[in-house]
């Protein structure tokens, strides 16, 4: 077995896993604050990527303007979704809210198809194109820079959570909604904030994923792997999202490299089943499932 091949695959997996981690972060922010399992996470990524595509190619905005534009637009969409579809579901059983996000994902796919058609599109190239070589291992530049973006954004989010007032409010709401309300935190506003933040992060992840793999209305399938990541890592744990993302990224990459592409999703889901059987609340999740 070629050791450099193994290293190359592992590195590619880690880099891809960074994107999973980023998307999982978007998921966890929403889940922590509002207890909503957002099955539409893949579609929110997709909306971000398509908005960027529309702004940069359709309206030919420069890249440095189109990226923030797409992020802001996605954040607005996230806030809108929370206000229209999620807020009325407060207090309903979690399964109902979960199904609302299933419906949302379907609406988002339909809107994208209506606006841009069902064909695949390519995003404009905006990352450096020199290949990255470590020893004899080669990493695709897009994947590498995507990983760097994911890393930087994750760090920024962690710092915001730690020091920014809104981040503190978000953490307070996550740990005890009632107490947070009583201490003067506007919990409904935190709910909106979490969806806005989640959508913005998802948009960044979407732009990177889209620039690596191209755009199509079926991009949302990426969200399935993200769901596996958050379940493996634990629904409400940021550390879990990061570790789970990298883990699933590497596992997928190894399965793809040594077994073949069609084994990727299969391996991911086998890992999921194993984790569910061993630690049903995920590797780092809070153990709040009632067990019988």
């Amino acid at each position, binding site marked *: 077995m070629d050791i450099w091949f193994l290293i190359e695959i592992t590195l590619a997996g880690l880099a891809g896993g960074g994107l999973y981690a980023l998307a999982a972060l978007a998921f966890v922010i929403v889940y922590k604050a509002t207890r909503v*399992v957002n099955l539409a996470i893949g579609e929110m990524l997709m909306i971000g990527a398509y908005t960027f595509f529309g702004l940069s190619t359709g309206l030919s905005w420069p890249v440095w303007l189109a990226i923030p534009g797409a992020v802001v637009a996605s954040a607005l969409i996230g806030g809108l979704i929370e206000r229209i*579809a999620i807020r*009325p*579901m407060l207090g*309903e059983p*979690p*399964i*109902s809210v*979960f*199904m*609302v996000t*299933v*419906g*949302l*994902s*379907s*609406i*988002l*796919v*339909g*809107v994208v*198809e*209506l606006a841009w*058609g*069902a064909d695949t599109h390519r995003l404009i190239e905006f990352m450096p194109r020199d290949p990255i070589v470590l020893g004899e291992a080669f990493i695709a530049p897009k994947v590498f820079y995507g990983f760097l973006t994911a890393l930087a954004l994750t760090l920024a989010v962690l710092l915001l959570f730690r020091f920014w007032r809104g981040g503190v409010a978000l953490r307070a709401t996550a740990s005890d909604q009632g107490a947070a309300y009583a201490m003067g935190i506007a919990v409904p506003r935190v709910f909106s904030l979490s969806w806005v933040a989640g959508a913005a992060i998802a948009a960044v992840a979407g732009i990177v994923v889209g620039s690596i793999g191209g755009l199509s209305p079926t991009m949302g399938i990426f969200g*399935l792997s993200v*769901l*596996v990541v958050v*379940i493996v890592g634990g*629904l409400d744990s940021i550390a879990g999202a990061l570790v789970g993302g990298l883990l699933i990224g590497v596992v997928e990459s190894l399965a793809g490299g040594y077994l073949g592409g*069609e084994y990727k*999703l*299969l391996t991911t*889901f*086998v890992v*999921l*089943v194993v984790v*569910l*059987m061993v630690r*049903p609340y995920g590797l780092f999740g809070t153990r709040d*499932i*009632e*067990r*019988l």
Partner: protein
Amino acid sequence: MRIGTAKQSYAADQALFDSATQRTWVLVLVLALIAFPFVADPYWLYLACLVAINIASATGLNILTGYTGLVSLGQAAFMGIGAYTVAVLEQRLGTPAILNLLIGGTVAMLGGVLVGIPSLRVKGLYLAIATIAASFIVHFLFANLGVTGGTAGLSVPPAKIFGVALDTSFRIYWLVVPVTALMLLGAANLFRTRIGRAFIAIRDRDISAEVLGIPLLRYKLLSFALSSFYAGVAGGLWAYFFRVVTPESFPLQMSIFFLAAIIVGGMGTILGAILGATFMTMVPEFLKLVVGWTSLGADSLQYVAPIRIIVFGVLIVGFLVFEPHGLAEMWRRVRRFFHLWPFKH
């Protein structure tokens, strides 16, 4: 106002169809279903069969999700197991169609029990995602096992009943609709037995159910088994109806479709699965009609698919937000209005 429904015995009180009016309407419905194939054109017969198959599967999912409270996104995968079993049996052994359907249901049932085992440890959303995992693994098996014919799939010879090949919509109707009706009757009766009531108790509060002496694991597995048996038989009917089975025939979207159908119809009611499956199957056809009326011409066709997806999503979200009890609740309201008419309450 409907009068004269005073019950004079416990048996009358517990009857499935408890009033003369209801029995009359059921009779009318049965007669209409018998007369339907003789008056309808092939397109409507095709739709009727499709609706009936979807009703059968949605009813199965309703047993699991609506009545027992275990959310599953694997219904399509279980249908696939049933469909493949029927296809293989019909192709290799040529056993009688009814037997094939039963075996298909049983194999799917075993699959369901296997998937249901984690339901001991996880529930709610974790279980939903575990069933997604199961359906991907099943999909992989379909595409890679030798006996399933790989990605090309299998073609299914027509079902034979008493030597008559059911190879047209008109003929298959006589297999699909009675089987579905039987399954519906079975489901309706299930919830008048202790098993069905145990399911409902588990849905309402599983810990209380256990305290009341209901063995949770056994009943959860039983619910999975029944639900996937329904899915398996529905999948078998599907195989006989479309006559070709491929791994792509039963995607995750199909599971979501069934979940949407019972939400729109009304979770935890027999009527809900019927109304929901009918409604969700007919909406796309209706949309095609509407788009056909508009003057967009040839361009209009490319909009049908996305609009259909959007409408699908809007229906799910809309029903959950505005009418969580679904079409069945609307139907009940209409019925109450006519019962009480001319009074308001």
